[in-house]
């Protein structure tokens, strides 16, 4: 249970995003927020509620419904010296902006040989378990993590949200910032006061253990922790790593842990084929195959377009702490 202290507050993830954006707007005139319904409505999750009153409609921009240009305009703003934070209302609607993210933002510095840069953040809520149906539930990280030039952050604890969002806003390169919808109000935690930064690309060991390494991110880190803590009672010791960033990825943290526990289970909400787990498995196989005592295993979503709206279809798609505990137990026994 998180408790507030004199130098920290207990916030949920929505509040952590909101507080961080607020500070950024306050501290730097160059910061602007643009997206659908971010102004008068204050974003569909009320993350930017009332910002428009304090910072004005010129800095909190309600855009037309046009995702490609929301990102493209942010690219132009960034090249012209602003610090835009573009919002895609739901990750499921990021596809029209694919070219601007992959073809433009990620290549601005590279193709101009450093003459122009693109310091911008694209924030978007993603993920399921909220009865979001086919088109308000997807995970998009694997569609983007293939792309050099981007940074992709997926924090799931309020303190990490703040530190990584600060890092993303300060970053001289484009950052895709993914916020899991189900963690928005569910997950609360202590968040230090004042400005601090968590470096992008550093994983965090959320629970130490000796018999198995679990690598995860997003909502599933919380479920993996629940499962691991439960197994602790049965004398099973599982280490849980929260990647926090998927590009760059913290190879060192993964390898260190795997060399210690000698077993690796990767858990993610996105589907398995070509997912984040594929790259981690390949990397560990290349670097540490002979340090392993069991085949690498991936627990990921089924190979279908998205979860269904009907409860059984959502449940069939999503994992659960119980399923995770089973997989962990199997791996430790192996």
């Amino acid at each position, binding site marked *: 249970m998180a408790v507030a202290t004199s130098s920290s507050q207990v916030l949920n993830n929505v509040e952590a995003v909101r507080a961080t954006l607020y500070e950024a707007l306050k501290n730097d005139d160059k910061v*602007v927020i643009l997206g659908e319904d971010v102004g008068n409505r204050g974003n569909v999750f009320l993350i930017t509620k009332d910002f428009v009153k304090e910072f004005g409609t*010129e*800095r909190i921009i309600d*855009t*037309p419904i*046009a995702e*490609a*240009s929301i*990102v*493209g*305009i*942010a*690219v*132009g*703003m*960034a*090249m*012209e*010296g*602003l610090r*835009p934070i573009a919002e895609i209302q739901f990750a499921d609607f990021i596809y*029209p902006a694919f*070219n*601007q993210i992959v*073809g*433009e933002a990620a290549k*601005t*510095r*590279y*193709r*101009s*040989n*450093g*003459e*122009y*840069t693109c310091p911008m953040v694209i924030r978007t809520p993603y993920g399921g378990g909220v009865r979001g149906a086919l088109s308000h539930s997807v995970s998009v990280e694997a569609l983007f993590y293939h792309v*050099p*030039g981007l*940074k992709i952050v997926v924090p799931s604890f309020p303190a990490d949200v703040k530190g990584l969002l600060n890092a993303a806003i300060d970053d*001289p*390169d484009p950052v895709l910032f993914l916020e899991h919808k189900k963690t928005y109000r569910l997950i609360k935690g202590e968040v230090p006061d004042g400005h601090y930064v968590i470096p992008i690309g550093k994983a965090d060991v959320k629970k130490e253990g000796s018999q198995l390494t679990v690598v995860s991110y997003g909502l599933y880190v919380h479920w993996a922790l629940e499962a691991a803590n439960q197994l602790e009672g049965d004398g099973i010791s599982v280490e849980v790593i929260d990647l926090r960033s998927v590009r*760059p*990825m913290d*190879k060192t943290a993964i390898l260190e842990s795997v060399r210690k526990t000698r077993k690796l289970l990767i858990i993610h909400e996105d589907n398995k084929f070509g997912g984040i787990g594929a790259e981690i498995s390949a*990397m560990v196989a290349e670097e540490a195959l002979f340090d392993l005592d069991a085949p690498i295993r991936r627990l990921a979503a089924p190979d279908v377009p998205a979860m269904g709206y009907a409860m059984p279809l959502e449940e069939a798609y999503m994992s659960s702490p119980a399923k995770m505990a089973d997989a962990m137990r199997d791996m430790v026994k192996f």
Partner: protein
Amino acid sequence: MASTATPRTPDFERHGLSDEQLVAMLRIMILHRTLENRGFALNRQGKIPFASASEGHEAVQAGAAMAFERGKDILVPYYRDLGLDLGIGLTSYEVMLSLFARIDDHSAGRQFPHHYASKKLGLYTISSVIAAQTSHAVGAAYAIKLRKESGRAVLTTFGDGATSEGEWHESVNFAAVHKLPIVFLCENNEWAISTPLSAQMGQPDLYKRAAGYGMPGVVVNGFDPVACYAVTKDAMDRARHGGGPTLIEAKCYRFLSHTTDDDDRSYRTRAEVEERRKEDPVPAFERALLEQGVLTKGSLDELKASILAEANDATDRAEAVPYAPPGDLFTRLYEGPWEPWQ
């Protein structure tokens, strides 16, 4: 290809330009054509893998460039804009570095030719992706407006084909909503590679779309550099002083194939191209300046000789510059050190 038809000289109105400015425009037009022809020659000699040309676009580009204020305005062009880039200050040497893809090219040899990027010139990094630049231009115009920088505007250009992209519409619409300091200049050459206007849009007058967005729409003869200057200047001045965006359609023509990798004989007749050649804006503007006494035969010859000398010198100097070493692949992707995944 030499045309036997009698050439036409357009009616010619100065719009307040001095003799020097008129000659400067002609110089850019001839230089533009000379450097592009050099690209074709180098391609045929096997020295460079690819070249493209914009014969037929010289007038609109030289004219629009004359309306651009160096050191203040921002240019967000597309790939077929060499004349515009030269007109705002790009040098022949930089052009040849780009054609040869040498290390000192703006992209250090990463991009196709004529994809420049220069903060000094206010020239944004050029994308090969059709219409992707229009939203960048709008973002830059938004920044200018937010900072209340009166007296500055953005000029962005694109082909007729680009106006079919959704993002083009998104950008023009956003600029209209916010009354941004920007000018959208369409270089309508009637072709998008092999696709004629009739297959691209239901009515061929692009400028008419402006009314639907709520901004002025202007059409201009893209073969008349001075008229192109005048409408661009008018629109840029309006944009610079709070008057909002304008859509300009300059009707021109693409005389050559799309690039060295295209053969236009497969989709349009020689008769069509011959007919349009009669309006070739470069010889027409030469004739106009001679007729008006702005140039004499002698001074025109001198001008051409100096352009050729400049092109030759730039070619020799650029060819002598090395390529980027292979390790350069790993530079300037992110700021600061990064570890490539391998």
